């Protein structure tokens, strides 16, 4: 198989994998924390975090590009730490994907965590600390919803285009993901290659959606 195809596919999977791991690490405590807020504050917080669901990806891409600039705080700090630019780099894409896929992970996480019976958790709280209850009782009981959130976030990251186009710069092996490579091949009139990407993405998306449907039917 064509090495460019494999490179773009591997990069896409790596991006989705890293993003999903980070979303699990940060998204689960965040979802737990959000569930404790009620009233206007909770609504406000959820609305802000849910913005990527409806916001054009170019808006997020634009703000990220501005924030990555060497004269901005984020850009400066990153440059001081790693001597490289966040724009047009893999870490930059991870950050963009993290924000862009956040609601796809956090919302199912919240639903799943809310679905666990309070009495079980209260019983657990008599014996263990809050963190222990969360990690050893709450999360294991909510595993289907957690897996659903992770699957959706993974699928959504693979399907990302606008954000990657704006902050990625289409660099082979670094930021040229499968969806960008598809766009690129069409412009070069390489339809067989474009077709390869399209079929691969279609298959992956279908498989992931089947997983998420199966998971949500059982949690539902």
């Amino acid at each position: 198989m064509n090495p460019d195809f494999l490179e773009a596919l591997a990069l896409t999977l790596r991006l989705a994998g890293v993003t999903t791991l980070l979303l699990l690490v940060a998204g689960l405590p965040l979802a737990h924390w959000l569930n404790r807020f009620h009233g206007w504050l909770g609504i406000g917080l959820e609305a802000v975090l849910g913005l990527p669901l409806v916001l054009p990806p170019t808006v997020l891409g634009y703000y990220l590009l501005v924030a990555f600039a060497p004269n901005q705080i984020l850009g400066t700090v990153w440059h001081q730490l790693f001597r490289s630019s966040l724009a047009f780099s893999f870490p930059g894409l991870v950050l963009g994907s993290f924000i862009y896929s956040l609601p796809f992970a956090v919302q199912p996480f919240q639903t799943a965590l809310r679905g666990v019976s309070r009495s079980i958790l209260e019983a657990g709280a008599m014996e263990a600390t809050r963190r222990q209850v969360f990690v050893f009782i709450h999360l294991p009981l909510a595993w289907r919803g957690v897996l659903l959130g992770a699957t959706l976030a993974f699928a959504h990251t693979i399907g990302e285009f606008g954000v990657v186009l704006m902050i990625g710069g289409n660099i082979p092996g670094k930021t040229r993901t499968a969806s960008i490579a598809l766009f690129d091949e069409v412009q070069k009139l390489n339809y067989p290659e474009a077709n390869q990407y399209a079929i691969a993405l279609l298959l992956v998306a279908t498989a992931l959606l089947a997983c998420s449907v199966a998971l949500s039917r059982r949690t539902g």
Partner: protein
Amino acid sequence: MFQSRNPLSWRQLLLVVCLLSATTVSILAERATVQVAAAADLVYCLDELTATFHRQQPTIELKLTSGSSGNFLTQIEQGAPFDVFLSADIGYPKQLVAEGLAPADSLFVYAHGKIVLWTTKPDAVPVVQGLNILADSQRVVTIAIANPDHAPYGRAAKAALEKAGLWTAVQSRLVLGENIAQTAQFVQAGNVDCGIVALSLLLGPKLKGVGTYQVIDPNLYPPLEQAVVLTRSGETNAAARTYLDFLRSQTARQIFDRYGFTIPASGP
């Protein structure tokens, strides 16, 4: 997976993830590679240039990205890791030099581009009659050009249409391609009636003999002086210098010539 005994393992996981991505990034950076940003009119020409370069320098790997020159300028200004910038004009490379982002001595003009009026429906749109056919809004409903704001070939198309006195007549019927390759794709797929594209694209293997084209009088637009420049990161990359020398060579000039470019007389 969440039943680990030690809650700290999450942090360790995060650390592993960070380390893994950092290593991959550094491994990629250490190979003898040259990151090339090339104007979209070069896509097919570049395939041949790259194949020839690989025969001469099998140890150097070229990583190619094609797009509109104006976008590349912005990206390089924002720190995109390109070593070599093959622009479709000379203005953008000069701007990089002026901004201190490219060494002045590396800049040279490698080719002069040409624009053509092209259609895949020659019966409906007889492009051989020249640009004036575009005034006929019955037959020519849509015309593709590259975005003049950031694509030099789009700027040349706009200049030619203005000079021919057609700009106001065609403006509402224009479809703008992101770069000249996408513009050609619009025409090739038959989604527009005709387009103004780079001759070099039509002489490539994909489009040779497709449709009919008419070369536009070069007096109608400012010359498309296509210049190349090293970036600051390319300056310290010996392989990038080697690639630049190759672009000056007789072999490369012959390839540019085959793709319809005029080669600047003042060679190296």
